[in-house]
């Protein structure tokens, strides 16, 4: 178990900057997710931590030791690849014991540990099969078993669930978190699936194009995105143009076409002055619709008409037109849904508004 730290790490492949000046700390025993769209540099960060790639500049620390010059096989990390990378010519037992063999573990102890690892991933008794004889989900667990059996100081997971079908993925999501809690290993998990990230992590690091956009707990990142990118990447969000009309110690007052003047106390408030243009994020499911005017609970209130309705089973997605502006609203279906062209009142609570950098 160890903490992992990146200090000003940059990785360039020719002209492509896969990672730019990343300063990230992964706390000891924590479950941290690297979240971002394809090609944003998540895998590159994992590969640098594991030693498969060396940083162009900057330092990587595992525990308190700088590991830039330490070769892969001496770093004692467990890495699970997106496609599992099980050895097809070796049995499951040989696959799992592989790392132990190179740690000169005794034969009898080796068998014991392989057995334990298979129990941890809840697949006992498959020792003598070959990887090709297992299903995707089972292979995924074997890959995990192979990584944890060496008792690594850090567990690195590169989109380990992406090859599974939806049901299995949710099952494995729960199981993976449970295993991580049980063994308490520092875990870095890579995904581009926001719901996976929100469900599993202690902390989320949102990345875009080689840059760290935001670091925080799932709640922080989801409720108070600090950039438009983060707001859009995690779920559906409305981003409204506005202007600061007043600023105080607790937040600012923003004037907007739809909602008039309303207070905002979340997000990137540093150094905002009256007259500054800003953007305000409102999550689609935090915008409330009603046929009667909203009461005092809403910090921002406005009016509009329903432009389109999109049924999605449990929820409905409405598109509300208000002047030049279109709002996206996700609502649970209760009694009678709103109809197209119906006039509605729109309201958002103060805690659900957040200012992002333009």
């Amino acid at each position, binding site marked *: 178990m160890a903490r992992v730290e990146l200090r000003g790490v940059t990785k360039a492949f020719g002209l492509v900057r896969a990672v730019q000046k990343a300063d990230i700390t992964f706390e000891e025993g924590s479950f941290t997710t690297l979240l971002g769209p394809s090609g944003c540099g998540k895998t590159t960060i994992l590969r640098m931590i594991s030693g*498969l790639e060396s940083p162009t500049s900057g330092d990587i620390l595992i525990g308190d030791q700088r590991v830039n010059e330490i070769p*892969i096989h001496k770093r004692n990390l467990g890495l699970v690849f997106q496609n599992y*990378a099980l*050895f097809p010519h070796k049995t499951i037992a040989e696959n799992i014991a592989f790392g132990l063999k190179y740690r000169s573990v005794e034969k009898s102890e080796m068998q014991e540990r392989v057995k334990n690892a298979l129990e941890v991933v809840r697949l006992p008794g498959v020792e003598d099969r070959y990887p090709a004889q297992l299903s995707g989900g089972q292979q995924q667990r074997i890959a995990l078993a192979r990584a944890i059996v060496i008792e690594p100081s850090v567990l690195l997971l590169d989109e380990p669930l992406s090859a599974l079908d939806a049901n299995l993925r949710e099952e494995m999501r729960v199981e993976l978190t449970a295993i991580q809690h049980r063994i308490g290993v520092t875990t870095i998990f890579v995904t581009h699936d926001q719901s996976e990230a929100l469900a599993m992590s202690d902390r989320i690091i949102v990345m875009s194009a080689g840059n760290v956009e935001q670091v925080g707990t799932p709640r922080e990142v989801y409720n108070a995105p600090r950039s438009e990118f983060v707001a859009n990447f995690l779920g559906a969000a409305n981003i409204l143009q506005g202007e600061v009309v007043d600023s105080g110690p607790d937040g600012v007052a923003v004037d907007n076409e739809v909602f008039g003047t309303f207070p905002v106390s979340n997000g990137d408030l540093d150094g905002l002055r009256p007259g500054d243009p800003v953007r305000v994020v409102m999550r689609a499911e935090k915008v409330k619709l009603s046929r009667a005017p909203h009461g005092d609970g809403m910090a921002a209130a406005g009016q509009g008409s329903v432009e389109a309705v999109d049924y999605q089973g449990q929820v409905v997605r409405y598109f509300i037109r208000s002047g030049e502006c279109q709002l996206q609203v996700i609502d649970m279906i209760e009694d009678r849904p709103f109809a197209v062209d119906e006039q509605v009142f729109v309201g958002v609570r103060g805690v659900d508004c957040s200012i992002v950098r333009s």
Partner: protein
Amino acid sequence: MSFILVYSFYENVDLAVDVAAFQFSNWRELFTDDYYHYAIWKTLRMSIIVTALAAVLGYIPAYFIAMTRFRHKWLLLLLLILPFWVSFIIRTLSWIHILGNQGAINGVLQWLGIVEEPVAMMFTELTVIIGFLHVFLPYMILNIYVSLEGIDRNLEPAARTLGCTPWQAFREVTLPLSIPGLGAGCLLVFVLTAGSYVTPLILGGPDDFLFGNLIYDAIISELNWPMGATLSFALLLLLGLVVVAYSRMMGLNQLYKAFS
């Protein structure tokens, strides 16, 4: 093929005059004459040497081509196939210009003053081996390349993170998984070498012959077709045995793969 077999029992009376018969003199000659035994032994030895050298020399470029991140990989493969456009005989003859007494190497050595007299390098067993390697190496490389390409790129890194040095990772993962391609390449090179006669004819000295040359002599020089048929059939049987032994061990799938 049965025609060859039948012919091997005919009797050769004079140059190009055969009598239909059923007699074993040709086969008896093959089994008793030391000359033929020596030829078989020499052919096997030569084939094994060439195959082993080709396996080692071919693995390295195959590995390089398969692992390179170079974007224009097809170019490297094209370079490999390019020599096939030139006649095999011309490629073999070209060694005379390199290794011969008036060849490039002797030219350079003499020009540098390292040797006074040209060093005799042509018409030895070594030149024959070089000639074989030159023409058969691409088959070996392509076969190994195909099976290396089929290996998941993440396996070696996975082995590395589990504690292997680069060499250990290669030995544990890449080498065993490329055995089918290596085997197919070896089989091809072995069979091609054992059955060839042109290379020793051009590059070998007067004493350098393989079994194929005996067939050639019997048929073209002595016009003894029945003996030629006997020798051909014997070679066919021998190589057939090798192929059967191989397919028993590895299965022939990889061969199809390499050719399709």
